[in-house]
């Protein structure tokens, strides 16, 4: 009997090894281990054997059965994997076709992208972000920024004015009241009372009216100047204003802040340089430069030629800044901005200018044309 069991074991082992598919293997399982299989029958009838044979036969039978089960299982895993492999090899696709349905990815405008980057840098430096109206009253855009009526700087930045006829009576009266309250010698005429803001600086005064010092704000937004459109001028553009006011803010703090901001935008190695300048609402006033990020401030490219980006100077002009003029604080002195006690700095620069420098755009007009082939270059 034991001989027969071993014979079945040998036969089955061979057959399992030969099985070419999971289906065939299943047949073998039924044939050798099924309810009607010979081995099963032998084991079922073991009680019918003589007592001395029961033990050895049962042992041998169960051993063979276990070994066959394990053989079938492992052979089944092999065959299953092979069959899946075979099926997969026939299911290949052209992986280079587009996704379906293609998941479209849109693009933020380069101005938005750059603005957000600047906002994040400023937030990191402890500033809040404020926005102001683009249509502004003369008082905030000029008067309270120390551009008295007739001041050359007021006319230098040629401004768009809003026709008084297209303002509500209330708006006109409020603008008149603001102008009159500023104690101008000659009241601003109605047709110069409301202006498309020429810079984001009007928010300096609005913000200081709204809350006392210390004040740390950044103001991004659209501005307008009456410039004819060309590669370097647009009548509509974007600026970011920064304002830091407390009792102990210094020009050195301005330089440090500009440096951090420029490093955030242009890379960790950058330096800020300030050159004295003139703005009516800051004193001292400066223009600020970033050390050229193409030639690393040397003015020369590795091959010894002159750097075209900074024109060999090593520095690129990026904006204007300065210590807030005491006259500006004078307009908000009642809100806690006593010019004898409070001091601060302000700075401003063009978002488009930064984006042009960062990405090498040659022409400002690209920002307002909105050609998708340009927009889609910046994800």
């Amino acid at each position, binding site marked *: 009997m034991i001989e027969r069991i071993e014979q079945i074991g040998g036969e089955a082992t061979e057959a399992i090894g030969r099985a070419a598919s999971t289906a065939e293997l299943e047949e073998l399982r039924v044939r050798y281990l099924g309810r009607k299989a010979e081995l099963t029958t032998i084991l079922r009838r073991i009680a019918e054997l003589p007592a001395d044979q029961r033990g050895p036969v049962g042992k041998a039978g169960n051993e063979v059965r276990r070994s066959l089960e394990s053989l079938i299982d492992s052979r089944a895993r092999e065959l299953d994997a092979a069959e899946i492999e075979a099926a997969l090899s026939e299911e290949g696709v052209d992986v280079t076709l587009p996704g379906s349905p293609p998941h479209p990815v*849109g693009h933020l405008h380069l101005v938005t992208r750059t603005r957000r980057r600047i906002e994040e840098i400023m937030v990191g430096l*402890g500033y809040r972000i404020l926005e102001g109206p683009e249509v*502004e009253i003369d008082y905030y855009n000029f008067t309270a920024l120390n551009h008295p009526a007739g001041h*050359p700087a007021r*006319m230098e930045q040629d401004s768009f004015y809003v026709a008084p006829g297209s*303002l509500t009576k209330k708006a006109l009266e409020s603008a008149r009241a603001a102008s009159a309250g500023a104690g101008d010698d000659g009241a601003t005429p109605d047709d110069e009372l409301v202006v498309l803001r020429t810079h984001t600086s009007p928010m300096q005064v609005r913000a200081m009216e709204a809350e006392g010092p210390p004040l*740390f704000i950044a103001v991004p937004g659209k501005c307008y100047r009456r410039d004819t459109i060309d590669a370097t001028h647009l009548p509509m553009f974007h600026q970011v204003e920064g304002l*830091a006011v407390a009792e102990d803010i210094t020009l050195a703090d301005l330089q440090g802040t500009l440096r951090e901001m420029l490093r955030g935008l242009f890379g960790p190695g950058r330096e800020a340089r300030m050159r*004295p300048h*003139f703005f009516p609402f800051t004193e001292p006033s400066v223009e600020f430069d970033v050390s050229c990020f193409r030639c690393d401030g040397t003015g020369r490219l590795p091959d010894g030629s002159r750097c075209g980006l900074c024109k060999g100077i090593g520095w690129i002009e990026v904006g204007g800044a300065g210590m807030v003029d005491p006259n500006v604080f004078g307009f908000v002195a009642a809100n806690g901005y006593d010019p004898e006690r409070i001091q601060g700095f302000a700075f401003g620069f063009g978002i488009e200018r930064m984006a042009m420098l960062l990405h090498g755009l040659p022409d400002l007009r690209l920002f307002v044309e909105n050609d998708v082939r340009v927009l889609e270059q910046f994800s």
Partner: protein
Amino acid sequence: MRVPVSWLREYCDPGWDSDRLAERLALTGTEVERVSHAGAPSSEGFVVGRVTGVGPHPDADRLSVCTVDTGDGERTIVCGAPNVAAGQLVPVALPGAVLPGDVKLKKAKLRGVESDGMILSESELELGEDSDGIAVIDQDIAGSSGEPARRRAGARLARPGPAHRARPGTPLAEVVAVSDDVLELEVTSNRADCLAIYGVAREVHAISEASLADPPWSEDAEAAGEGAAVDYASVTVEVPELCPRFTARVFTGVTVGPSPIWLKARLVAAGQRPINNVVDITNYVMLLTGQPLHAFDLAQVPDGALVVRTARPGERITTLDGVERSLESDTVLVCDREKASGIAGIMGGAASEVSERTSRVLLEVATWDGVNILRTSRRLGLRSEASARFEKQLHPALTMRAQRIASRLLIELCGAKLVPGTIDAGEEPDPIEVTLRVPRVGRLIGLEIDAETCAARLERLGFGVRRNGDEIRATVPPERASDVSREADLIEEVARLGNLDTELPSTLPATRERIGRLTREQLLRRDAEDALRGIGADEIVGWSLAAPDLPERLRLPAGDPRRELVELSNPLSVEHSVLRPLLLASLLDAARLNLARGAEHVVLFESGHAYLRDGDRAGGELGGSFSGGHPAPVYEPHRLAYLASGEPPQRWRGEPVPYDYFAAKAALEALLGRLGLASEVEAAEQPFLHPGRSARLLVEGAAVGWVGELHPLVARDWDLAGGAAFEVDLAPLIAAAPSGGEPYHDVTTFPAVYQDVAVVVPDDVAAARVREVVLEGGGELLRSAEVFDLYRGEQVGENSKSLALRLSFQAPDRTLTDEEVGERRAAITAALERIGGSLRE
């Protein structure tokens, strides 16, 4: 302002090359636009020569063969100029010299005679257009006043008369700047003093500490004329507030002719065209001092009487540039008894111009009201070197400086006699004094500067300084009066001379009370923008400025508030003369541009302001309500708008999804979903949308925007075949958005029961209504009901439709039984009956 470096060095020479000079000026507040070059590339090879003999050329009638002493011996030079004569001092270019225009001079045979150099004409020196004759160095017409007068003119007033110094062999550069760098300064509006060579020299002195020559006006001219100025002329100023000072001097015996070449060279290098010696002197003195002057031919002024008044109604004038101009009532004129002679401070008139016949000159040096000059010159579109200076408000003290220098030059160069006395209408205000508390410097700039250094810097800038410990009382020099009047101004002066670029530390504000963060509104605005970007839309930045026919093009009917545009009173063009009342216009413009440039489709959005005369300002900045004591003058809500247009992209499997109402609505739903808001719309028309395919968006019952397909006529107007769009106010969306504050619902503990149902309703019942009724019938246990299919056809009969909804029943505290769900279904069936609907089994 063009500053010839050779001229500058005469007053202050720090020994720096032009680039270093430019850099230091730029870093202390005087921007240098560029350093350009005037004349020959180098002054090497240019010398003074004396013509010692002139003989005929053997083979050419027009040429002469000259012998010229050039210091190193005599050389033969062939010359074609008719005016060459023995004894003349002339500019000579030796072989090897490089002429302007990079032409290198060589020995050359001219019709057989070798010429060892070249005698130069003015045009070859780039000093003028006169190329007929050679430039003669000693042929100035100062002879009448004699050499002593010229000597008195002094070393720093002008080049000493060349004849005194120049000898054969003298480098030509010592007589006339043959090769000069020119600093092109961009002078800020507060620094009228830097629109003057001497002013820039003072600046260089202050920066470099190199010595500064005495002011060229320190010495006045000798008045050798007969009588007194008042015998020849009178001045009446009718508008002293617009003309704080008017000075006049009279000169007799003036000989008008060309200026000497040193003077021409300076004017040319500074960007002025030489005219005649009198006019050239006025320009020269203006460039030197910053104070403009004007010379009258006194014979052309009846009785020598000048009147300063404002223009009369309708008055017109022909200015020196030959243009007739109409004048406003605040235009100030300098007039004679009969007529206006010139526009004060801006441009003279032709009538009393100095000409070759002039022998008596009245020299006007006046101070005008800067604001008035600026206004007038802007209005007339007429800017001149004079107005560019006057508009920055000159100080009355500058007038006499200019009179003194000009008097000496008129005597020296025109043989004039100065008539004693200066007619002087107006007066000189007292100088102002400003106090500087030295510790304030360090406190403001973050770098201590001691009192001694502060005082020294101010002194170098021309301030009178009295020091008392840490307090400095500074007297402001007249040329700085319009810029410096407060302590802060003095701090700036002290700070800017302090090598900010190398000495100032970089620190960060120490103030601790500050927190940087984006507000909830700002974060959600970004989310909203990102949602549209996420579904494939490209953001544009559109023009806020639009054309006034926009309401017509958008078919806005009378009475629509969006017709009430905010208009500009001084637009650059009609196309940009109003502010857009909605963002859609910008998107339409961008769509048109892109499709015209070959794009097959565009999916665009914009995030920005619309501009309306008035509106309900709620929701902070996004709702047009900004910080500050005075409200914004117009209503500027922040909006998001979207437009898809063109041929939707063909894909390699599946059908293209058309840019129709549902495409725009899907985009809107993506936006709302990002903010955590449900999409609730109801059919509503917009004049620019398809009337049957448009809706308004509701948030908490209020309309906050629209969505729909473009009206075909509007689409056509923008050359579009069609398209779909939406535009929403951001403030109410963000106010209603639960985003960030959503409460938790338990949806995992007990299983949900899902059921798909088909609802048959009359055609005119909106899907949203069906859903609403189903939700109502389902009660609390029905967590959601979403429409996923629409069927019309035989099986539901005419005028009806079948909507398939997926229902999800769930309770937070138990597993629902079949019975419970069955009850809810029955309730739904009952509810549907009220709107004429039924559940299809």
